[in-house]
């Protein structure tokens, strides 16, 4: 029996990478590699049907077809792999993982299966397992940038920024024109407070994409972290220019205005944030902070209360509410707010409470 295997290039089933690809080139379905079917090959017939359905994005029927193939040939790993791809497309990552585990158990060097498994784990939020599977894929000769990129993202999400930077750097070796990878490496540098390197990467990303509010916001935030508030404001303004309804841009620029002690301008920006996204608790909290700086305690108190109403477990807003109550000489109210802040994870509030304990 001779047949050609077809593997739907697994990255198509990974939203993260699909997003990159949509802006570049789509990986085509390799129609030339469909199976050549001999007589009485029910498994292969069902498999070919599954591939067609997958190509048509009819994932439910594709899964049924691959199941039919597997009924006739339980060791038909290509069918199982593509079934996993279809399941992933449907967001059924646990089932996809189950299928892929069967594949890699019987084919321990199948780097594509390992990559697909890693991708499914990644989408499921299981970063350690994802990293392990990506490692197996690379070890078994997977040469695409995707494994490195996703490894970088998984490491980033685990706050292992050294590993993230290393993986993003490897990804850039084979895909040096990706603004996304530069952006993400910049973010990893930023998290390590290596702001100059972060800024360099974000700038490179900005050159590659030119009109991304995301990159300019990140660049603005890196400048703010570095203490260069003027550049921060400039870049957030760029983000706002690209995307005038970008509430994140206004929110971040407002914060930079607070750092520059331009409180009126900060208030203007935070009001714009709330206009664009009235239920955005951060905007209300930050507006309260700006009012606090202006010593307008009544307005500050109202803003913090609005933030808490929108996000009842918002520890930082409770901490700020405590601070404004303290300034209004309502010590009892302040301590009550700080207790809520502490209950909601803002542990610094405990020392404020202790001060008023005795």
């Amino acid at each position, binding site marked *: 029996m001779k047949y050609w295997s077809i593997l739907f290039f697994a990255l198509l089933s990974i939203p993260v990478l699909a997003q990159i690809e949509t802006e570049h080139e789509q990986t085509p379905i390799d129609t030339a590699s469909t199976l050549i079917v001999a007589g009485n090959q029910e498994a292969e017939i069902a498999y070919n049907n599954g591939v067609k359905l997958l190509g048509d994005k009819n994932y439910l029927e594709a899964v049924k077809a691959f199941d039919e193939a597997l009924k006739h040939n339980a060791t038909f790993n290509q069918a199982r792999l593509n079934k996993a791809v279809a399941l992933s497309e449907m967001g059924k990552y646990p089932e996809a993982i189950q299928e892929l585990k069967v594949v890699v158990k019987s084919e321990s060097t199948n780097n594509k299966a390992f990559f697909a498994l890693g991708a499914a784990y990644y989408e499921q939020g299981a970063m350690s397992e994802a990293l392990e599977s990506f490692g197996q894929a690379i070890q078994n000769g997977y040469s695409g940038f995707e494994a490195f990129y996703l490894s970088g993202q998984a490491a980033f999400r685990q706050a292992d920024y050294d590993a993230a930077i290393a993986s993003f750097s490897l990804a850039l070796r084979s895909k040096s024109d990706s603004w996304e990878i530069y952006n993400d490496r910049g973010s990893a540098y930023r998290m390590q407070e290596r702001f100059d390197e972060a800024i360099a990467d974000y700038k490179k990303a900005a050159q590659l994409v030119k009109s991304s509010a995301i990159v300019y916001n990140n660049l603005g935030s890196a400048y703010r972290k570095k203490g260069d508030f003027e550049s921060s404001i400039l870049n957030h303004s760029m983000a706002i220019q690209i995307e005038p309804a970008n509430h994140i841009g206004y929110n971040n620029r407002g914060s930079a205005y607070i750092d520059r002690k331009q409180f009126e301008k900060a208030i203007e920006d935070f009001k714009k944030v709330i206009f664009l996204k009235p239920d955005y*608790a951060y905007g209300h909290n930050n507006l309260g*902070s700006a009012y606090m700086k202006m010593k307008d305690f009544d307005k500050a108190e109202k803003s913090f209360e609005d933030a808490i109403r929108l996000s009842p477990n918002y520890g930082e807003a409770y*901490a*700020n509410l405590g*601070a404004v109550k303290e*300034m209004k000489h309502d010590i009892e109210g302040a301590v009550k707010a700080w207790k809520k802040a502490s209950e909601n994870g*803002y542990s610094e509030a405990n020392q*404020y409470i202790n001060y008023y304990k005795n």
Partner: protein
Amino acid sequence: MRNIYILEVVILFLFLTKIAIGQDIPFTKQIFGNDKASLKDALKAIKDGDYYGSNEQFYLALDSYNVAQDINPNNSELNYKIGRIYLEIQRYSALPYIKKAHELNPGVAPDILFLLGLSNQYNQKFTEALEIYEKYRKQLLPSDRDQIDAVAKRILECKNGVELLKNPARAFITNVKELNSPYSDHSPVISTDESVMLFTSTREGSVGGRANSYDQEYDEDIYISYKTRGRWGAPVNVGDPLNTRSEDATVALSADGQSLLIYNGQRGNGDLQISRLDGDRWSWPEWLSGEINTKAKESSASFANNDRMIYFVSEMPGGIGGKDIWVSSKDRKGRWSQPKNLGTTINTPFDEESVFMHPDGRTLYFSSKGHNTMGGFDIFQAVLNDDGTWSKPENLGYPINTADDDLSFVISASGRNGYLSSKREGGMGRHDIYMVTFLGPEKPMVLSNEDNLLATLKQTITDNAMEKTVELKTIRLTVVKGVISDAISGAPIVAEIEVIDNEKDEVVFSNMSNSKTGQFLISLPSGKNYGLAVKAEGYLFHSENFNIPGATAYQEIEKEIKLNNIKKDVKIVLRNVFFDPGKAILRVESYPELNRLAGVMNEVPSLKIEISGHTDNTGSAAVNERLSRDRAKAVVDYLAAQQIASDRLTYEGFGYSQPIADNKTNDGRQQNRRVEFKVVSE
């Protein structure tokens, strides 16, 4: 007749025109015309005001001037006079009068610019005051030496004020209305735990019962108030023997509230006396013994180091200038030693006043007209360094300090609340007592931001950025307070309380519990291992151990101490007996406690005791039993070495067979590791 009418109309027109255009309107016939009665009343009132003013009867002077002011509020000279009176009795109120006097007639008096500067300064308008003082300085002749110096000092104060106002203190001030009256209320003193306040007041109802003719204030008396559920109760005149028919004023209260220093102006230009609380009665005040009281005035003071030191203010010779702060220690006979001047870091050529040492024994508060005051007496803080030197005094800042006098500052042990006396706008009259609530370190605002840090991840990542925090200043002090009572009847006991620095074997505090309530209060600065021994006649002593590491922040510990009679089978835990871990070698810190036990054995020769050792349940029973027995024996050997007959001492080791607390917790295990004695025979 018609002509007279026309003249009157013209005069009225002129009068009104002058008012309308803000002109200086003299008290003359030309202006008042036929309204002779008003003119007569006004001139008489001014004359009376001048008389009272020259006799320093400022309140009467003000009443008189106000009669004339009601008739004609646009006379520069009268406004000047009223302003001057206010600069004597209520400085912040002078500004509108002095300002108007200057506007109506810039040449109304040679010192009008200086007074305008002062009036602005007393309203914290430092920038305006600076400009006016500079203008005034340019007018002075080189021969006006005193005025040149005075204005130079004022300019300096205003410059300080400008700086201090840039960074106000994180505190707010409230008038303690429960305590204040329309009369002068001042010199608050508080117990360490802020439960009791005594203060001085010139309100109606004084023991002397007379109001003086100068300011209509009654003789100063001492009042007491208790704080319950966070509020001060109605003040009560403490009466006899503290209050007399003369002036009686509070100076300082000891940390435990059992000793009170008072000021008596009838001897040596003003001397200090002490009174002790016996139950609920204050003892007859006695002059402080030793070297503190001199022929010069001693005006304020503060106990320190558990009443073994006194910081006080005196005008005695040998100082830096004016009133200075001095310190004296109690000698072995309980007399106050030769005072030492605190030196030029604290004292200045100007007056210092109102000294207060915090119970931590290191932080000194005082008022001064020197250093970087923004005007009059400001309150400062300085810290005693380990090498005996003082840190540079720091102005407590606005709004604690104002350009007027801010005096009599005291602060609770926790450092959260302070009290002071001053005259401020919105007060109840004259000097008032104000509470300062310290807000602690500035709370940084937390800004919430987020970014799409990973380009392909829709989910944003939040970044909560906190502003830089201000350093947290912590008071390192433990306050132990409670009641000593009979273990059986629960009745309060008057007992002797001794605190020993175990490492130095040095008594750092010794006092009696209150005879009526059995209450006590001790302040223990962090960084030492303290032994607390409580002794009372007919009772076995009680001991506690407080090992307080140096970094321990302010805490209050309440302790109910029950004393047992010397009776057969009574057991007492020796909490200040220490061994090396896993060994039966007594550490030297144990000696004070064992010496105390030897003392009891000597006092009661019939007493026979059994020393027993106990462990926690860590390790094997056999090892623990051996260790506990060896430790009990070590105690017996020590007592024998102190000449206690061996037939009065037996020992036993119980290992972990007799726990007194849960071995599952650290605290419980610590309590179980102990040495105790049992009365075998009385």
